[in-house]
């Protein structure tokens, strides 16, 4: 069992955008997909999921529609909008820059000082 990682505040939206960007998915599916793609390292609090989804929808980054789930239940499916795709790509780059910078900082040696 992999160790679970603490999700930094503000990064939940990015992870949800990633999960939704992989294909249309309902709310519970988002939770499972995040768990799956993070190798079980990220466990999203169920109470935090829906406010985040609604916030993203309100910002026009994801769009929801009512459909039928695989177990034949009425469910709300979310997909990425064009605006969301753009935002996700920008946030990804920004995140990558941050990770690179932190990694670089943490691997610094005395010679570099």
């Amino acid at each position, binding site marked *: 069992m992999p160790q679970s990682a603490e999700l930094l505040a503000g990064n939940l939206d990015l992870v949800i955008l990633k999960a939704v960007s992989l294909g249309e998915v*309902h*709310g*519970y*599916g988002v939770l499972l997909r995040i768990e799956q793609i993070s190798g079980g390292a990220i466990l999203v609090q*169920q*109470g*935090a999921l*829906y*406010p*985040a989804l*609604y*916030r993203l*929808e*309100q*910002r*026009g980054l994801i769009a929801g529609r*009512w459909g039928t*789930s695989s*177990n034949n*239940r*009425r*469910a*709300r499916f979310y997909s990425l909008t*064009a*605006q969301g795709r*753009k*935002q996700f790509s920008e946030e990804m780059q920004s995140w990558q820059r941050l990770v690179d910078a932190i990694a670089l900082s943490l691997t610094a040696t005395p010679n570099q000082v």
Partner: protein
Amino acid sequence: MSLLPQWLAELAARTRALVRGLTQRATLEREMRDEFEHHIAARADDLMRSGLSASDAQRQARREFGHANTHRMDARDAMGLTPIAQLRFSWLDVRLALRILRKHPMLNIAAIIALAVGIPVGLAPAHLARALEASLPSDAEGRVRAIRHWDPLFSRVAPTSEADFARWSVAVKGFTSVAAFRSTLAAVAVGEASPSQYSAAQVSASLFPMLDARPTFGRTLDARDFAAGAPDVVVIGHGLWSAQFARDRNVVGRSLRIGRRLYEVVGVMPDGFAFPSNEALWIPLRAAESGGAAERSRVQVIGRLADAVSDERAQAELSALGVAPLVGSSDAGEMEARARLRAEVVPFSLLFLGLPAGGLDALPEFRYVQLLMFALLLVACGNVAMLIFARTATRLRELAIRNALGASRTRIVSQIFVEALVLALVGAGIGVFAVDWAIGKVNIAQLAGEVALPYWLSLELTGRSVVSALALAAVSATVAGVLPAILITGRNIASHLSGASRVRFGRLTATLVVADIAVSVAAVGMAFAVSQHATDLRVRDQALGVPAAEYLAVELRIPDEAVEDLAIDQREFVAALQREGGVRSVAVSDALPGMDHRSRPYELDAAATGAEDDSRWVRTVNADVEYFRSLDAPIRQGRDFERGDADSAARVVIVNTAFVAQALGGGEAIGRRIRFPSSANANDARWYEIVGVVGHLGVNVMNAERGEAVYIPTAPGQVKPLRIAVRTTAEPAQFVARLREIAREVNPDIVIDKASLLSDLRQADWYLVMGLALGLVVLAVVLIALATSGLYAMLSLAVSERAREIGIRAALGATRGALLLTILKRPLMQMGIGALIGLPLAARFLYELTTTPGGDGSTAGAIGVALALTLGIVLFVALSSCLVPMRRILGIEASEAMRAES
């Protein structure tokens, strides 16, 4: 890919979500619940697959999901819907609002008056615009349009002829039918009775079917009545049928006389039909016989749009057709004038009112008026906001308790909004009712200087206007209720539980009161100055230049008469008048002193003053050569007109002193030349020589110095409209009957119209100025009422809040004067500042308008009286707002005040 910038796309998405939250709150809540249920069910399925029983899986899933209500609240917060979710309007709010209305009657009455004036004033321009553009009563589908020529150079309707009508009838396919008509006046007599004048219309055969107008008796005009040699027939209106035929049901077949000809009555139209305006009878418009005559025969044209044909399509078709050049005209000026015309499809009312294609909305002046009216409503809302602020401030403790018991800020704000809404609805209701009552009682036609309003024009309130009033009430309540509520609940509302903290009026309210007083003083002063000026007989007599009370002015109309016959009739009529005992002189022109004069652009000869301004305009008068002698108007320079001057070859004019001062810079006028280049008449486009100068002759009665005019000698028969001023030795009004008799003796077809004393004539400017004065008075009254109520609100609040302090000071021996000063100092200062700002404005305006060159020194006195009056009115009303609070201050008992507070 969206083309919108990210921030804009996000704003649009947020707005959409917010609107959805506002409009579909129940759906949103239901969807949220369904989504949570799906989540729990899906998790339970997974748990069952891992071996749990159905009930255990359900329980476990719910436990993991947590408290659904908390998630819902978080979700609402995330969507920005929490304040909306807290908005709950109930009958309890309305009941509370009504209770508050009763509790603060003075404040509420002031607020209701402000809104009862502000809301109808804000609505009036749009209502008027809609009323003026209404379709004809018989045109339920709104498909009848006018087809007209528009002259863009002069921004006015240009004539259309029978030839245009014939061409449009055939060539324009967007109309199912096209009809023509011409309004005229008719001297109507039945049997041996003396004739009475009625407005009549000559109409084409297609008119009645197009309007779907059916008679009460008999028939309307049809094709057989328009054939050459057909007998003369007439369709009469309900009014004429009642007045001339005593509602005889067998009237069809009887005859009436119009001028010299006998007409057989073939039908009676129902009450209320008076097309095109207030016409009482309709006769066939028989086509002019030759092509040339059809070109000159003026008619007005309407058409019924075919089904599914839009105004734009009909307009495009008409534009493609263009304006036909004049057949048989070799006059370059006339051809040029014709070439610049535009054929237009417009609502019927626009043809009648002479408004541009966009209607009232197309006039910049109308936009300004609309803005002004809305500004007034905004001022009213600002003042009402101040009243609500004051009223709410007295209830802070109550609101703080409600807050402590769990009422959110949104809930409190929404309740105050409902209170404001109730106020606004009561105000709007009273305002709308008052306007409706006034429309029914006031003779609007008379105010507008008309005999009657067009039959199709109804100023009565429509459902749409009432709905607009309600919407405006809601907007007013938002401005006047929500803003102060947010302001007052913004601070720590709980601190008011102890009653220790105090709400103060800020700079904004002080500025509002100062501005109200300043504008009121200025408006009262301006209204006084404007009305004083408009009614100043000294200014008027000076501008008129003739003893106007001794003249009777009439307009002569002789329908369908050739120029030669007109000339004979004019000469005979004038000669008959001159022979009449008691007539001192007879003056003939197309614009008598004190009437509106036609303006035209002009050019001066090369030796002009140097100003190359080619857009100068001057008023022109076509006058008989005896005009100045008949008016006893002395020639100041040069010579008077002579008998041969009316020949087109003579080409001489006389100008007035205002023209010499304004256009020639006071230089030499005699021998200078002038022409009217854009005139439709090429003859006028050639040069005229100035041979004389006269003084002011009522060209611009409001401002004689800006009444530049050129008098053109005109031969009999060519003065149109033919206006005659008759100077009598006795009372001119008593001469009207005899004048009509003389007209009948000369030619029974002559119609005497608009008989009045020359001194009773008013130019359009006069109505404009008096309207302005009235508007200023209304504005001043409203502002004074608002300022009074604002001051009252401030003082009431101050007295309530400082009752304890006043009580203590009274107990310590403070005098009544000192106590009053404590509270009144601030409002008195505000009134003083307001008056100090407003007075110079009023004084400046008074000075500008009431000071005339060569004045006799009485102006300074008039200004002093006006200013004192202005200041007196404002201060009296403003101080009266202090009376009730003053009584309360003086009535405060120290012991009671302290006990009440503790």
